[in-house]
Structure formats: structure tokens, C-alpha cells
């Protein structure tokens, strides 16, 4: 029998979070809109502790699209942190990012991928990339911890250069799997 090793998402397997925080800081990101995910817990802690950043907790992810659009109108850069299920909550609000070309940058930690223990996470997780791309958001996918900061830096550059929305998806196996046992 094949033994499946499960780790909990709250236990970091690699410190990509510190790298992403550094990348955000270097890019001049001041506004961080958040709906929490276990995989984002460390990054949220870093951003909250950083006095140059304003952490804005949201009741739903679509609020973050408006928040970042407003920040950009005010000549400020921001980023949204969310779990993949939250991308579905953003869909219509992304019309504003696409129609007005707001550089909304989303860092999305994946659920519903192979290893998922909650069946209700599977449909939205499976549709995340397609839904974002259908709304005109360019998507890149980090399949290793080392790739996350690199891809976030690239997404920020491309978003600001083109004034258009970007998302970086962090594969679930990078985060570790949550077991309901």
C-alpha cells in the first residue's frame, strides 16, 4: 500500500512567504487586501507587521478588486491575497479591472487540487484558472516554493507595465494538504 504523507498547511514547508513579502516591498506595494487562507498565514503576518503596508481585511474577495482599483486611482499600488475559492467571488467585479485596465494583482493559494480532502473545494479549485482567464486576468502558476516570489515579482512588473490584472496561483502541493482527520 502506498503511504501518503500529509502535512498541515499551517506548518510551512518552505519560506516562500518571506520572499514574497520582500518582492511586494521592493515593488512599492502599500495596500494589501486579504481574505485569509492557511497557506497565506505567514505572508499576512509579515505584511501586517510592515508599517509601510496597510492590511485591509475584507468580508469577501470582490471587495478587494474595488479596493485596489480605488488605490490605483489614488496612485498607490496594492495586492490581493486570497484562496482559490475567493476568485469566484470576484468575477463580475473584475469587469472593472479589465474594462478600465486597473493593475489588480492577486496571489491565490490553491484548494481543490490533487490531495484535497474537502470535496466542496474541488469545483471552484478546478475552475479557478479558467474563470480568471475568462475575465481577462493573466494567470501564472507556481508549482514550487522557489517559484512563488519570482512569479509574483514578474506579475507585478507586467501588471504595472500594461495596467492590467494578473493572478499568481500557488499550487496546493507547495502549501501542504489539510487533512480533516
Amino acid at each position, binding site marked *: 500500500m502506498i503511504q501518503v504523507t500529509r502535512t498541515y498547511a499551517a506548518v510551512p514547508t518552505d519560506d516562500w512567504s518571506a520572499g514574497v513579502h520582500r518582492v511586494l516591498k521592493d515593488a512599492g506595494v*502599500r*495596500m494589501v487586501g486579504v481574505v485569509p487562507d492557511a497557506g497565506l498565514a505567514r505572508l499576512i503576518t509579515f505584511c501586517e507587521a510592515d508599517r509601510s503596508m*496597510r492590511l*485591509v*481585511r*475584507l*468580508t*469577501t474577495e*470582490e*471587495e*478587494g*478588486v*474595488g*479596493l*485596489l*482599483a*480605488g*488605490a*490605483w*486611482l*489614488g*496612485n*498607490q499600488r*496594492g495586492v490581493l491575497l486570497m484562496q482559490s475559492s475567493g476568485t469566484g467571488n470576484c468575477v*463580475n*467585479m473584475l*469587469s*472593472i479591472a479589465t*474594462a*478600465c*485596465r*486597473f493593475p489588480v494583482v492577486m496571489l491565490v493559494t490553491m484548494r481543490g487540487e490533487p490531495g484535497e480532502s474537502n470535496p466542496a473545494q474541488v469545483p471552484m479549485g478546478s475552475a479557478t484558472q479558467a474563470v480568471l482567464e475568462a475575465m481577462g486576468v493573466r494567470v501564472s502558476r507556481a508549482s514550487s516554493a522557489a517559484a512563488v516570489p519570482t512569479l509574483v515579482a514578474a506579475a507585478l512588473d507586467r501588471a504595472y507595465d500594461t*495596467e492590467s490584472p494578473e493572478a499568481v496561483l500557488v499550487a496546493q502541493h507547495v502549501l501542504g494538504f489539510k487533512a480533516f482527520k
Partner: protein
Amino acid sequence: MSRGTLDRRAVVGRLLAGRGDLLVVAGLGAPAWDITAAGDHPLSFPLWGGMGGAAMMGLGLALAQPRRRVLVVTGDGEMLMGLGSLATIAVQRPRNLSIVVLDNERYGETGMQRTHTAHGVDLAGIARAAGFPRALRIATMTGVSRLTRLVHDGTGPVFAQVKVSPARAPLVLPPKDGERLKQRFRDALRAGRGPNAASRPAAGPS
């Protein structure tokens, strides 16, 4: 709750008279036409979509520009779609942000169907319960004049539900190109002026 009688164009006209360097976001539909009827302005951002997002755009703008006053003008249907944002804004407590809901108790662009406010849902009460230190229900032009002073000089965040008549006003459409609306806003803000910037001193740090 009693039906509103105020003329929405008169309300917005008073809010924006001598607007100085006020930054304005309008929710989609009639509020966007209303702010345009008061005079198209580079420091106005009328939304053509994103229903439920106007208050959050105002929050992003207010946090990014803490030395400027920010006014969101939106409708009851639009606000009802983003009620959670009232909680988010109350937690952030931006002192320079006012949210004004023109409440005609109708979805005006889709056939004047009743919204929840026609059935007693109390938007100002929701804002107050969310933690807005000032959440007003206004039904007179005297009240609108007091609100105008709060928008320009009060300590926010301010929420106001202004009861307006369901009568439709003539369409006065803003530019449709969202990219252009965005760019002219950013350019005007960077230039540090609106057309009447000298008429009102900039708000101090809040």
C-alpha cells in the same frame, strides 16, 4: 419608513457645489448620471459596472490619499449589493471618506423595481451597527447642507442615507471609456489640482 421626496439632482448639486479638490466616486446608474449632471470633472470616477463596489473604491482611494476628502455617491440597490464593505470600511475608519446613498427605494435602471429599503431595511442603521461613528438618515435639504459640510470638513467615516424621490431625472451620461476616466483622474491627482482647487483649502492630515 417614509418615502423620500428630495430631488436627487438637487441633492447632488448641493453636495458638489464648490467641490474644490474633493475626489468623487459614483456607483453605476443614476448616481453616475447625477454627478455628471453636476458637471463632468477629472476628479470624478463614475462607474459603469462593478455593482456593489463603489464604496470599496472609495475606501481604496481614501486610504491612498489620506490628505484628500473622498465622497462616494451611490444608490440603495448598489449599496445593498456590497453591505459587507460597510463592515470593512468601519474597521479601517478612514477619516476622509463619506458614503452617500441616494435612496429612492428602487432599481432605477431596470424598471423601477422596489429594493429592500422600500420594505424597511435601514441602511443607516446597518452602517451604524457596523461601526460608522456617523450614520445619518436625511430627508430634507437642510440636512443635505449639513451633510455637505461633513463631507468637506467633518471627521469620517461618514455614512448618509438620503431619501430621494423615485422620479427619474434626464440622462446625462459621463464618458464611457473607463481607461480614459481612470487616466484623467490619476493625471489630475498627480497635477495636484482640480479646476477649482484654489477655492477650498486642502483638508489637513486626518
